[in-house]
């Protein structure tokens, strides 16, 4: 059990409305990612679901029961915080056992559950250390351990990987995904990193300025962005946008095409320009091409492309991969 329904949720701090009226359906066992730029309200939304903030209006249902006024501990949710929020003066064992202790579980049951969680998370050797003696990744695992011993209906993650270095982040991403496969519990995950969103999610919720821009599976968002914001946010490198005469030819205010859908030729293409920067990653080459009279265009070419700074190229976007947007940015 772990379905969550938000009905016309709003949240205001004083006069500023941080979350505009918002509906969302999260079904049992889903991995949902809230993604958006800083200050879009994604963390606030998570805290509303957790019960750490009170909603201004609207209703939160958990497992079909109205939980709007339920205190956080009674909602059956567990949260992993960005700073891990481990209790610094307690050993790892006590940290993980803390929610069980608060639930007044007998000591033997507590120990058994802590040992089990530690085994799942490879923490057995560290149970008697303090959080201060652990590395970032280990602390992260302790925080997850503290969440899983409660056997919650849903896990809430608030940017859990943003304090880790890049290599560790990829590792922990996989571990969290694996954990989801094993536990099959609903997970709600907040991040500003669209790569994390694309790789982990069953369902992505793109937020901007307290509004849901689009909800869908990662590939849905990639292939059918509802508007220019989502199109620009999902995908790396960012989608190229072109306005003016080129767009009008396609009957749109703005057209967009992804860097990976552009053909490069010597001449005769749609856009002619000069290579500004070329980033050779080995597997790919990212070219930033300066085209007269418009913003630079990013192109993703294969790793063997020999183009360098100053070379002139001609670019042709694949005609069936061009996205068209109207004046207010909605997809046509």
């Amino acid at each position, binding site marked *: 059990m772990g379905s969550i329904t938000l009905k016309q949720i709003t949240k205001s701090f004083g006069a500023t409305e941080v979350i505009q009226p918002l509906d969302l359906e999260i079904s049992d066992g889903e991995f949902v990612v809230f993604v958006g730029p800083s200050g879009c309200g994604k963390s606030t939304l998570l805290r509303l679901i957790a019960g750490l903030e009170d909603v201004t209006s609207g209703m939160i249902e958990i497992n079909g029961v109205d939980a709007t006024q339920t205190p956080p*501990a009674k909602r059956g949710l567990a*949260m992993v915080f960005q700073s891990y*929020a481990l209790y610094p003066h307690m050993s790892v064992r006590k940290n993980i056992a*803390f929610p069980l202790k608060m639930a007044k579980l007998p000591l033997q049951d507590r120990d058994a559950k802590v040992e089990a969680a530690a085994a799942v998370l490879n923490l057995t050797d560290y149970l008697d250390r303090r959080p201060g003696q652990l590395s970032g990744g280990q602390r992260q695992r302790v925080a997850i351990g503290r969440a899983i011993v409660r056997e919650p209906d849903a896990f809430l993650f608030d940017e859990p990987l943003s304090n880790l270095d890049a290599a560790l982040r990829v590792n922990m991403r996989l571990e969290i995904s694996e954990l989801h496969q094993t536990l099959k519990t609903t997970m709600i995950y907040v991040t500003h990193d669209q790569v994390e969103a694309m790789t982990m999610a069953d369902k992505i919720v793109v937020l901007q300025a307290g509004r849901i821009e689009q909800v869908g599976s990662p590939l849905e968002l990639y292939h059918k962005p509802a508007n220019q914001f989502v199109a620009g946010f999902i995908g790396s490198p960012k989608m190229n946008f072109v306005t003016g005469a080129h767009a009008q030819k396609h009957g749109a205010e703005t057209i967009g095409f992804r860097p990976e859908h552009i053909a490069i030729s010597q001449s005769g293409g749609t856009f002619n320009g000069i290579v500004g920067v070329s980033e050779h990653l080995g597997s790919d080459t990212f070219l930033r091409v300066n085209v007269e009279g418009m913003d630079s265009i990013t192109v993703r070419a294969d790793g063997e492309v020999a183009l360098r700074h100053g070379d002139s190229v001609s670019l042709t976007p694949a005609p069936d991969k061009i996205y068209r947007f109207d004046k207010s940015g909605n997809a046509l």
Partner: protein
Amino acid sequence: MATTHSRVAARFMLSPAVLLLLAWMIVPLSMTIYFSFLRYNLLNPAIDAWAGWSNYEYFLTDPAFFAALTNTLLLVGGVLLITIIGGTLLALLLDQPIWGQGIVRILVLAPFFVMPTVSALVWKNMFMNPVNGLFAHAAKALGLQPFDFLAHAPLFSIILIVAWQWLPFAALILLTALQSMDQEQMDASEMDGAGPFSRFFYLVLPHLSRAITVVVLIQTIFLLSIFAEILVTTNGGPGYASTNITYLVYAQSLLQFDVGGGSAGGIIAVILANIVAIFLMRMIGKNLEA
């Protein structure tokens, strides 16, 4: 920075300050030790014979000494207890978002800026006086017999006065510690199902332990040498009921004019203070390590 050369230079340049501090401490200390072995009485300056350990013997076997020792420990312990518990509660209160927070914080801090003699006199004459004091008026208004605090509970009254002075200090230090409490930890404990009391005992109190240690250490240093409050309120009396070691040393050397005995008492006080310090550091010093 840390070349041999620069280290030598640093030592060389530090030495005047170190030597000055050393002289400042060593000279009075050695003079006190010297006096403590003399038969040195201000009423009889002719006699300055070597006294051996007799001053120490006299001071330690004086029944007043044990009364004073007990009083000193009660005074320090009592004030620490009141200020730590009261200070924690006050800090918790001041940490809440209340209307007029700035003014309230200044008001709470105010007693710390009143000099000890003044606050002791204010307490003695305006609050604890059995005829004119506010407490006496309050008792009379309730139809009770006014209580003569300084005559019947002198040590307790002094503990009350000193605790009143030091409460703001404790509250201030503990308030700053409270404000550095990590909000996400509090959120996490809320999710984990901890109520306000569990949160206080499992999270806030351990977080405050370092600040409490600082308060205990600093206050102990000052509380061992409480003097002005006793002088202006009870003069150590009735009998020896409110005499502490500091006051006893004063009485010995300046009321009985026995400088030799007073010096011996001073050295004993130094030794006692060091014993207290060793015990304190053993007990709570580990809290200061990061």
